[in-house]
């Protein structure tokens, strides 16, 4: 759910064209200030607050994993196929590993893949969208065609094919594959916003004052679509988390890493449901779902960031 608004946020450099050209050091406090204000607006949205809390909690667990996890996630020292016990809170895998510790450590991989793939997809989306939106004519035609093509090709089947062909997989393979397949939606939204911003006075002024293309696109136009960029990041991160889980469940991940997706994969391989160990399926799936939901919840706040009409009165 992304809402395109033409109104630039008040912090836009367009509001003060004469300020531009100052030393770069001056821009840092401004952008920090902007970030702080954005976070405050996000925090004031109830849904986004819940989302931020879940993400923060997950990040905390990922960082403190060695302190929280009671056992090593890879040690095969326990009775295999055991149900929840006092030592193994969520039971053990068929190889005798502690599932609770695996869940704790697994948050690292899932978070990293989600954030890295989301960031990479956003980078592609911003570049494609900005260039296409700012350069009408053949450049726009070609880039828009590529974007539309990427949009209509079913994502998950393409990811499966790509991952199946790439041998020697690491989690970075998954990051690349997911980023490669989930940038198109963001690119389209950013392109349409860039098209409307292109003809604004402050952009024309920048062109006439002889600014380079790179600077116009990234310093004049980009700051006016921060919320769109953020929305496409959180959207891509949600997609990345779900896609990672799917690929790893299919056995297309790296089975030697411990992540929520690989816990699901091994649970299915070892017929956890038939042996009654439904926790092995339930816990990682729930963790994945919660993280995916929290990214979507934050996106509600991002929408409110760009569209004051959507802000909650609370």
């Amino acid at each position, binding site marked *: *759910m992304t809402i395109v608004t033409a109104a630039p946020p008040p912090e836009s450099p367009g509001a003060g064209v004469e300020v531009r050209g100052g030393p770069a050091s001056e821009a840092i406090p401004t952008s920090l200030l902007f970030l702080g204000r954005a976070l405050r607006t996000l925090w004031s949205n109830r849904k986004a607050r819940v989302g931020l809390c879940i993400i923060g909690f997950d990040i905390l667990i990922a960082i403190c994993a060695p302190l929280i996890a009671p056992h090593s996630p890879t040690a095969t020292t326990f009775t295999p196929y055991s149900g929840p016990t006092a030592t193994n809170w969520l039971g053990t895998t068929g190889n005798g590993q502690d599932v609770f510790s695996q869940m704790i450590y697994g948050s690292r991989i899932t978070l990293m893949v989600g954030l890295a793939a989301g960031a990479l997809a956003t980078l592609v989306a911003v570049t494609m969208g900005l260039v296409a939106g700012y350069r009408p004519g053949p450049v726009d035609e070609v880039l828009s065609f590529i974007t539309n*093509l990427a949009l*209509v090709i079913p994502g998950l089947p393409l990811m499966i094919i790509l991952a199946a*062909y790439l*041998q020697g997989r690491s989690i970075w393979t998954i990051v690349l594959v997911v980023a490669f397949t989930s940038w198109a939606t963001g690119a389209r939204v950013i392109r349409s916003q860039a098209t409307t911003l292109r003809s604004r006075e402050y952009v024309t002024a920048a062109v006439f004052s002889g600014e380079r293309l790179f600077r116009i696109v990234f310093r004049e136009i980009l700051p006016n679509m921060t919320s769109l960029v953020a929305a496409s990041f959180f959207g891509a991160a949600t997609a990345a988390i779900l896609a990672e889980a799917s690929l790893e*469940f299919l056995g297309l991940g790296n089975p030697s890493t411990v992540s929520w997706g690989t816990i699901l994969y091994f649970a299915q391989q070892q017929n956890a449901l038939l042996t009654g160990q439904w926790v092995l*399926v339930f816990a990682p*799936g729930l963790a994945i779902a919660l993280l995916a939901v929290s990214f979507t919840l934050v996106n509600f706040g991002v929408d409110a960031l760009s569209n004051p009409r959507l802000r909650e009165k609370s």
Partner: protein
Amino acid sequence: MRYRYVRRKVVLFVITLWAALTLNFLLPRLMPGSPVDAALGKLAAAGVTITNAERTAIEMQLGVPHGSLITQYWQYLTGIAHFNFGVSYSFPNETVAQAIGSAAPWTLVLVGSTTIFAFIIGTLLGVYAGWRRGKAADSVITVGATFFAGFPPFWLGLLALYWLSFKLGWFPIKGGYSPGVTPSLSLSFLADAFDHSILPALALAITSLSGWVFGMRNNMINTLGEDYVTFAEANGLRTRTVALLYAARNALLPNVTAFGLSLGAVVGGAVLVEGVFGYPGLGNLLYIAVSNHDYPLMQALFLVITVSMLVAIFIVDLLYVRLDPRVGQ
């Protein structure tokens, strides 16, 4: 002119189709390593030494193309035109085309009915949420839809399989129809197949509802602010009449364009859901192909899925002119 719109769509469809075919051709050729290397690697890991003659034999068996890229491309295109996708090594007795042909109707029915179901329910919920914006019903619907959208469909399927089929015995456990029954168009077989499709369809439908809900809710909020809605209200029409007949009708239009695209997401979800349920469709076939490193089958499935998507989107585009005459002008 309407013809110009249709002509543009046809040209775009043909170019996109060509690009998708070419992408499918280039993908395996751009990738590092090859199916042959993978097969040889497996043999080497098992301690088998491979002579050059054996390597050639494996290449022949896997249908590894020879000749220049241009000749390969030509062979690939003529092969597709004749529905010749090579030999699958998961199903030695069938060609890839036969395996796909027998699986396609299952997915078509499953994904088709799921999408239509999700579209109707999601749109209705979205209309209601948009109409009752800010009220309790709106919060329940939006929060609920957000949560279900975060669930991996295959996970929901696994849990449903465990509790509803395995523990409670309400639904059949695996497959698209009961073992021992031969597929036919008899009423008893269709009832049996329907029974088997309920859980996979539900897992897919629940997780794909949210797109429709949010799309429709936002459109409703926009149309409810339009002048003609205010005018209808000022005329003293009942709020329900205004919401359903004036606002919802027009809010529906943008959602229709999303119909084609949403098929892609459902097809993606169907791959794993069908795998989980052992449902005999294209998704299950892809699941098998991936587990067996069956590259010819994988390649053909990707092609079939992509082309069906393109056709679906093309049809929706054409139908859209009839729904909204403005796009043709």
